[in-house]
């Protein structure tokens, strides 16, 4: 860079001289300088980048190539940006691949490289684009900037909590598009990023792949979104990656699948195509073929029925592994209230129950919302039994489907802020869903909450301690005023985040508060209470006002013996945790009042409920073989080993 600097320096000096020495400059000489000074070229808001809408196996079918418009930032070759960096290191072959420079003018003008399986630079571009898009979607839903996982701030031997970064902090998430030879992709806190694998397609039944071809998980839009969601969730909820019950790992998986599946419904071409081929019944597992089979078996490809791409997840991956179908599906599960009770379900299987509950609710709301459209359409002589939906009708349906998907996705994401801090169960997630939606949208004209409750009920997902299956009973109760002190000086800050000083201030304040009110907050006196996260959230209320909340996680770890009568046999860490929603009251008499806890969602270790939790966790540890050894790492969710899927 020295060359450039040299070139720059004299220019500025010259400019200064001109201004000082010659008050009336030569117009011909200064014209360009003046214009560029006054009318600055605006920084672009978005950077268009091409990528696959699904994965390479879909070919160019209904616009499988799409252009994502992601938030613009200056990029170094990699691409390396502020919060994510693509570093193409192959751990199996121990080599780096050439990085793409997305700021190269010829790529800037062409929306990046065109989709290609054989050019690793396109792979890097796609991973960058899709991860950026996912972050954007989550930030829009949460109403705040997300951050990645940070190490827990625990006091050292002297009881002091050291300032500054910790070794495990993830400042920037690294994305490794070709990290490993494995039919797998995984978010790994240890590698501070996401590892994407590549592998050979099955030689026997590779679906639409060539037998033995190399399949890249980093080219599957679904897989990228899924893994990014793991990373985002891990940043929001530190202890959701601690294995404490069968639900925890399953929840991580289900949530990641939900995020990946809802994204499908924002894809207009795919949506329109599916609506046409299902007569508007988006939830059908198979699409009608383009051409009808007149007699016997299909003879041309247009007569082959295709799977509905909207409800299937990771088509190419699933096919390449020889299953002949998508890896997972939004609606693979028939509602069976007994299945959830089986403790031996593998996390993805268990997660699939939650996924299908959410999508059951989604399709129910979609049908409710479009019922009138169908009525009008039929009254006008339209036939919904055939695929021949008129263009405008299909368009309206697509809009409704995409809008509903957006709403449901937001509900699912916002509910995270209303979940307990530790040991999440599906039933508690339902409570969080209902509470958060009622909190944000008191009136529910689409009947979303009812649809969710019924869908969960049909699958036997019920909160342990709710009395009735009704909104009132499922909602966490609002904390009565005066039951806990207010927060006098809590800084809610700015939607773009808190400054370092503000964070330190809030951290200290919250820690002091936790100690002073330990038992009311659901903790025992004595052991350290950590504050793994506090996030201000800015959300638009239905009346157009901005609602400001601070979401705080608190947790306390206690070592519990495997067997209270045989403490020598070892212990396992159990946590009590609480989520606090502190709201900033509206302006009154020219002042803001103190922050008030609206919701306190506790998960205790004491009392009959706590005992039950302990017992459950013991049993879980036994089943999972977590009794062996004393390595605390064994309780952490290993996304890489979690099944051979992703």
């Amino acid at each position, binding site marked *: 860079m020295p060359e450039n600097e040299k070139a720059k320096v004299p220019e500025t000096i010259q400019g200064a001289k001109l201004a000082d020495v010659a008050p009336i400059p030569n117009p011909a000489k200064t014209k360009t300088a003046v214009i560029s000074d006054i009318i600055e070229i605006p920084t672009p808001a978005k950077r268009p980048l091409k990528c696959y809408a699904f994965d390479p196996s879909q070919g160019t079918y209904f616009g499988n190539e799409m252009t994502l418009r992601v938030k613009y930032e200056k990029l*170094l070759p990699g691409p390396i940006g502020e919060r994510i960096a693509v570093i*193409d*290191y192959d751990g199996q072959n121990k080599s780096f691949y*050439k990085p793409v420079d997305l700021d190269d003018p010829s790529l800037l003008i062409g929306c990046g490289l065109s989709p290609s399986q054989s050019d690793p630079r396109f792979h890097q571009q796609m991973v960058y684009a899709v991860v950026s898009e996912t972050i954007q979607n989550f930030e829009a839903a949460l109403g705040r900037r997300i951050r990645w996982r940070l190490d827990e701030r625990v006091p050292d031997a002297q009881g002091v909590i050291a300032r500054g970064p910790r070794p495990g902090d993830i*400042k920037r998430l690294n994305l490794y598009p070709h990290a490993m030879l494995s039919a797998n992709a995984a978010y*790994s806190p240890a590698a501070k990023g996401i590892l994407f694998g590549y592998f050979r397609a099955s030689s026997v039944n590779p679906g639409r792949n060539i037998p033995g071809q190399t399949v890249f998980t980093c080219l599957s839009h679904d897989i990228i979104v899924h893994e990014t969601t793991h990373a985002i969730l891990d940043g929001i909820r530190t202890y959701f990656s601690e294995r404490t019950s069968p639900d925890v790992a399953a929840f991580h998986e289900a949530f990641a699948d939900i995020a990946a599946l809802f994204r499908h419904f924002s894809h207009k071409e795919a949506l329109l195509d599916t609506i046409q081929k299902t007569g508007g019944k988006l939830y059908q597992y198979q699409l009608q073929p383009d051409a009808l089979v007149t007699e016997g078996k299909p003879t041309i490809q247009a007569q082959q029925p295709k799977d509905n791409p909207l409800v299937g997840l990771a088509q190419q991956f699933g096919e390449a592994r020889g299953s002949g179908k998508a890896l997972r599906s939004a609606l693979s599960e028939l509602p069976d209230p007994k299945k959830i009770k089986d403790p031996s379900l593998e996390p993805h299987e268990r997660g699939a129950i939650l996924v299908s509950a959410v999508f059951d609710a989604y399709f129910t709301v979609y049908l409710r919302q479009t019922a009138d459209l169908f009525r009008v359409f039929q009254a006008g002589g339209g036939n919904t039994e055939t695929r021949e939906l008129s263009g405008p009708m299909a368009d309206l349906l697509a809009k409704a489907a995409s809008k509903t998907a957006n709403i449901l996705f937001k509900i699912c994401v916002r509910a995270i802020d209303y979940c307990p801090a530790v040991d999440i169960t599906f039933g508690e997630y339902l409570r969080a869903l209902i509470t958060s939606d009622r909190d944000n949208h008191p009136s529910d004209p689409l009947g979303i909450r009812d649809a969710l409750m019924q869908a969960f009920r049909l699958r036997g997902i019920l909160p342990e301690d709710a009395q009735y299956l009704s909104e009132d009973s499922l909602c966490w109760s609002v904390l009565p005023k005066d039951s806990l002190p207010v927060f006098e000086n809590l800084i809610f800050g700015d939607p773009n985040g808190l400054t370092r000083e503000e964070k330190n201030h809030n951290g200290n304040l919250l820690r002091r508060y936790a100690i002073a009110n330990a038992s009311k907050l659901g903790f025992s006196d004595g052991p350290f209470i950590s504050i793994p996260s506090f996030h201000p959230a800015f959300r638009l209320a239905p009346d157009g006002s901005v609602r400001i909340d601070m979401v705080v996680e608190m947790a306390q770890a206690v070592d519990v013996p495997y067997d209270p009568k045989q403490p020598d046999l070892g212990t396992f860490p159990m946590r009590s945790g609480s989520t606090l929603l502190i709201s900033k009251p509206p302006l009154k008499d020219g002042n803001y009042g103190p922050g008030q806890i609206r919701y306190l969602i506790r998960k205790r270790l004491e009392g009959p409920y706590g005992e039950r939790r302990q017992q459950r966790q013991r049993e879980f540890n036994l089943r999972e073989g977590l009794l062996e050894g004393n390595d605390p790492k064994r309780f952490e969710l290993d996304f890489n080993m979690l099944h051979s899927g992703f």
Partner: protein
Amino acid sequence: MTTRKTTKSAGKRKTVAKKAPRAKAGRAEARTSAKGLKIRMYRVGFGDFFLVTVPTRSGNQYILIDCGVFKGTSGTGDIGSIVEAVEDMYKTTKGRLALVIMTHRHADHIAGFSKAERFKDFTAGMVWMPYWEQFNDAKDSPHNLQFDIQELAHNLAMQFGARKDEAAKEALAQLANATGVEDFSAAATGKKKGGGNAKALDLLKNHLGANGKKVRYYAANDKPELPPELKGLSAKILGPPPKKAKAFMALTDLKKGVGQYLDSMTEDKDGPKALQPFPNEWLADLESDYPHQEVVDPVIDYEQVKKNVEASQPDMLAAAASKIETFLNNQSLVVLFEFGGKKLLFAGDAQAGNWEYWLYKGDGPEKDPTKAGAMVDASKELLQTIDFYKVGHHGSTNATPIQAVEAAVSRAKSSKGFVSMCSTEYGVYGNRDKGTEVPRDPLMKALGDGCSLIRSDSFPIDITSPKKKTIKPAKGVNTKLPKPKVGKLSKAKLYIEYSF
């Protein structure tokens, strides 16, 4: 079965009655006294070799439960006494075994059948094997479950080739235990692929089991068939869990996962080589192609990146090996014998998934969430009334659930207690610092506090082959035999025996 009318028949009891003849005897099926019932644990190293003497009316009958040994991770598991121990058993039994039980097909439970030529002279009334063992028909049959495992284990072991790390060592040991192949590199060059386990299984099924005619396969809740000579003894099968599609699915998944990995390797003259996804032209020069780490804020430490990615490579091989290990252990046949009012529990190497089935009626959790994790009353009662327990999986934590120990040792003060035998060899597996040592100290302590526990490695043993030496007892182990409240323990050159 016919019920005997006569209650006294002195002549039939001659082998048992050394002292005064019993005043009364029960009906033929249900004996009221267990006098003369013996359980013998041979010290063979890391492996199970148990001989039960059943004093039936027609004389002593013998049940052999497993006969195996394995060198383990340390390579010291096989102390070299098994052939001699089989000879000893031949002398005791005159080569006639009423029943042979193979709990599962791990070398540490069956190697003796291939190592000791003497087995050719044995005959058996019946052979029991776990349910899963029948899915081993032939190469191309759909029921070739066990064959698949064998094949998978072999392929995996080959891939480990040059690896020398701890995880690889452990995984190789697990695979060797599963196949009975002690040296995979030698097996690769040789023609034979079967390994010691194949030979042992052949002997069990074809020689002792008379080409399958005398072989019975059982899973939990099956009513087992006892050979007629064991009249008076009853048996209950508690494990393995009965066939569930899920278990098969798990194996199919495993095969797919491992298969994918194996598919992606290509054979090179230097051994297996990984698939390279892009031609060499795409390889980057870190210095010139990537932004210098100083330019990036926050900086990127590329060396650290390399380390992180390499450390995160999934150890598919090790994971698969350990899955196979658990899969086989959980096939273990768990048998409860009852004779003369005494209950003997032999748990094989059953791990959580197997125990869970009968301990918690594991098909689903309790409807009442307050009872989640609670043991089924019947199982609790059973554990509190057993008189003998064969410690599962050589004393590792994963094989004797703490709740089970807890239930077994928490008995009424008036209880006569029970005896546990743990066949194990110290220092063969695991690491004390990591809390994974086998046998696990705290478990041994908990059991030892609650019952009379004897370990097979608690007494010295003189070995003559391959060379003369004395194998010492494990350090810190009580070498004195405990005094059980019922019956007595005695020591011989090669074994410890518990007699009622």
